[in-house]
């Protein structure tokens, strides 16, 4: 089980409070976590990564274990602490706009 924390606007859109628990088939990576998240919450499609290209939106970042892992390869395994549910996978709306 992966624990995911969304930014406020996406929690509102997905109608969830706090963390989301999702199950990932196979190794936990950025891609598999986002695939599972969008399957469970289809209203999030297009709001974290683009339709079609699956490219991360410019002002979205991903954090795990207090580290910014946004630029890590999307198919790399996530830290064991995230894969085991000990730590959260955090989707963050980057500070932007001044």
């Amino acid at each position: 089980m992966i624990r995911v924390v969304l930014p406020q606007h996406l929690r509102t859109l997905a109608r969830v409070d706090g963390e989301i628990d999702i199950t990932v088939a196979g190794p936990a990576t950025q891609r598999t976590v986002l695939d599972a998240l969008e399957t469970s919450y289809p209203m999030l499609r297009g709001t974290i990564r683009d339709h079609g290209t699956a490219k991360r939106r410019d002002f979205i970042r991903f954090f795990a274990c207090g580290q910014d892992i946004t630029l890590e390869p999307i198919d790399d395994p996530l830290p064991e602490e995230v894969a085991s549910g000990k730590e959260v996978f955090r989707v963050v709306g980057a500070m932007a706009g001044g």
Partner: protein
Amino acid sequence: MSGVRLLVGTRKGGFVLTSDGKRDDWKVEGPLFAGWEIFHMKGSPVDQDRLYASQSTGWHGQVVQRSDDGGKNWEPVGNEFAYEGVPGTHQWYDGTQHPWEFARIWHLEPSLNDPDTVYAGVEDAALFRSVDGGHTWQELAGLRGHKTGEHWQPGAGGLCLHTILIHPDDPQRIVVAISAAGTFRTDDGGETWQPINRGLRSRELPDEEREVGHCVHRIAMNTSRPDTLFMQKHWHVMRSDDGGDSWQKVSGNLPSDFGFPITVHPHEPETVYVVPIESDSEHVPPEGKLRVYRSKEGGNEWEALTKGLPQEHCYVNVLRDAMDVDDLDPGGVYFGTTGGQVYGSPNGGDSWTAIVRDLPAVLSVEAQTLP
């Protein structure tokens, strides 16, 4: 008793303003989708409880919301707007070619006879249609694929398709307007399109009367006379009496013929409203006086409507989709400002009151007349 519902889109959420037919006591509800830009909300003419809303932020992109109960409850529907085929390029500000990229929905136009059919005018300019209540969207690619498409250039606000007018007697005939490409019409339901800009003059262009490239800000129509169109262009107020085939300037005695919104009285097809602003470089009312101008002669002769509007120190703007009329008698007129005020007139503009004063900057106002 009949009533009015105003759907107000703002920089930080949507608001719903309702009143009975007297239109002197309003209930303000919102914000819906707090913190998101609500570019536009509009209801179906055949099912007034079916509403569509364009919701977006720079972080999370485009979301489309739908309500089936007049705005009490909303559900996100489809938000995938894929250009058909290889998107190609259009002209960028510097004259180079730039890939077409979807940015947002500027305007949602529900069908006149089917609540599940709705059109979306988007940036970069294209027209999409959904026939399943917003769940899926298909581009009407003949528009963007017009031979002039690669020459279309964005206005200061982006390359946006912001106006969609469906002919009330012939749904195959649709007029759209794009900043800064101009006006286009289809007579076959969106398969093929022709530019309809003859008579427009834009001194910003090397060839002032070229086929495309005009910065059309807004077009309005009274459905009882659908071939008469009124246009607020970057500069100039124009009219057409042949469905857009040709245009004549009707700016007349306006203090400035630069502006964004334009609308037509619900029962008097020759009564037109605009809100002039100073210039292309100063988007504020002339002399700090917020004045709606009304022509009862279809243009040329305009009168200032000031009663109830601030006549000093007022420097707000009214954006292109932020003025509308209801269908009551006498007809009501409404507009919202970038300062967050929504003004209403229950008497065709003779006098105005602020329905609400301190909303976020208003992007759009749509009036629904309720039974």
